[in-house]
């Protein structure tokens, strides 16, 4: 069994929900994924510090950032809580066959490379099961571009999945949440991202101020 230094028994989890209504089923899915992940880490003696980011609270700041080219102080701090996390959960409603515009805009204002190596689970909600593949044809490639580590299991929750009769511990949704959470917890356990110091001024290897290589 791996041992960790004392100060490393906590893992940071960032939970991003692009749900627009309150209460939102997207947020509900995100919370269930977060709780299941924390429970698995806890079983290994690791505490989870969870930060929930509701994109609707940052909608104006995200749009401003797209136009002005910089993030407000609050949005910048929010993005840093994501990029410095050990793992993340990204949930979006499916709008018009794909991720919501706000979800995409948020990913558009994150610096290329800032999510590299970040373990994460993708989740989506929709009115019908027919859009479940949006997870794999639309959302997964976004994170491939960002070079994040996406768990093999993504979780799609349709309206039908929330039905009371099927919502017990043995339902399909609960099983999918459990599987995704196990995969994420495994990756987060081995992550040192939140303990790393990132140098924003790191020069490329071999850089010479006189132009010689």
């Amino acid at each position, binding site marked *: 069994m791996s041992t960790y230094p004392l100060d490393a028994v906590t893992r940071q989890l960032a939970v991003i929900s692009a749900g627009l209504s309150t209460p939102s089923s997207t947020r509900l899915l995100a919370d269930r994924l977060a709780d299941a992940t924390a429970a698995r880490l806890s079983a290994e003696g690791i505490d989870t510090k969870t930060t929930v980011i509701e994109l609707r609270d940052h909608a104006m700041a995200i*749009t*401003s*950032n*797209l*136009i*002005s*080219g*910089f993030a*407000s*102080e609050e949005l910048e701090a929010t993005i840093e809580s994501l990029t410095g996390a050990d793992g993340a959960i990204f949930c979006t409603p499916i709008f018009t066959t794909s991720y919501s515009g706000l979800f995409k805009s948020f990913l558009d204002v994150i610096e290329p490379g800032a999510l590299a190596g970040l373990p994460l689970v993708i989740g989506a909600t929709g009115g019908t099961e027919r859009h479940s593949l949006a997870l794999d044809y639309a959302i997964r490639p976004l994170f491939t571009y960002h070079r994040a580590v996406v768990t093999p299991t993504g979780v799609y929750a349709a309206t039908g999945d929330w039905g009371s009769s099927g919502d017990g511990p043995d339902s399909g949704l609960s099983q999918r949440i459990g599987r995704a959470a196990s995969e994420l917890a495994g990756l987060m356990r081995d992550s040192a991202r939140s303990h790393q110091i990132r140098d*924003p*001024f*790191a*020069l*490329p290897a071999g*850089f*010479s*101020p*006189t*132009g*010689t290589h």
Partner: protein
Amino acid sequence: MAAMQFGVFSTGYLPQDPPMTGHAVRTNETIQEIITLARHAEEVGLDVFAIGEHHNQPFFSSSPPVLLAHLAAKTSTLQLSTSSALITTNDPVRLAEEYALLQHLAGGRVDLILGRGNTGPVYPWFGQDIRDGIPLAVENYALLRRLWDEEVVDWEGRFRTPLQGFTSIPRPLDDVPPFVWHGSIRSPEIAEQAAYYGDGYFANNIFFPARHYQKLIGFYRQRFEHYGHGTAAQAIVGLGGHVFIRPSSQDAKAEFLPHFRATPFGQGSTLDSYMEQTPLAVGSPQEIIDRYAGMRDLYGDYQRQLFLLNLPTMSLKTSMEQLDALGEIVPVLRKELDRGRPADIPDAPTHASRVAARLERASDANAQERVMNR
């Protein structure tokens, strides 16, 4: 000699409206207006005028050395600079020669702020590729440096034909090349190169929040000290800024708002929040003074403060009035920023100060030689 230089900079933007006046007429008017404004900057007591370089619409300023040579003849004290000159798409040999000639014509009143240019399509017009932007800037500047500092240059690099036994002409005035500021918005490579050569670092400062530039300038200062040019506090820093001044704060905001809305950066946020987050200051003279007197608390003691000359939607009359207003607040700012400035902080570099420093170095070297020969 002034501890700090104050001035104005223009990108060289050509207003597209009103179309009724005809494009050709408008182009000529705008260029003549720039000359009028630059001369007025000298009249109201500003130290520096800087013009940008662009090769795409809607700009007119394709050749800063031509425009600045004209201004050199029309002014007598104004320091002439660029905002910025392109170090990527220009051949460093041409830069070395044109700005050295300009330096002679202007009696040394010339320095450069260098930039990369961020418009992808422009690069191939000059046989380059924006994806090489940083390596191009770094290599081209290293060559420019040698062309000015060394009489005969043998050189081979990645981006232009090799040089064998080449001497760029004319040689710099008094063998002291124009001072160089490296302009950068985000790349640590450029700050690193500025620090390596002991050159100035200019943060345009107008598009991003102060906290962004604080980090970048802090990095440059630290590297300046690392390379042995002085302490971090002694590094040569220039800042851009943007102000609009009227006797009352309310009038300033009301008048500025439509101009702000017409800019690309004026559409994403309210004027108040943009002012809060960037160095844009719109208000009464005292408000502007308070804001800019506080700059050194953010960035340390610095050497040059430039303000954006105007916005393309402003009339010549408004732009002239803004220069008048700047002329009134700058003496106060000089006093404010001079108060408590440590004695070992260098003044803004000028040709005269650099010639003096060179003579001092030469006499030190002579003295050392005499000691060695004894």
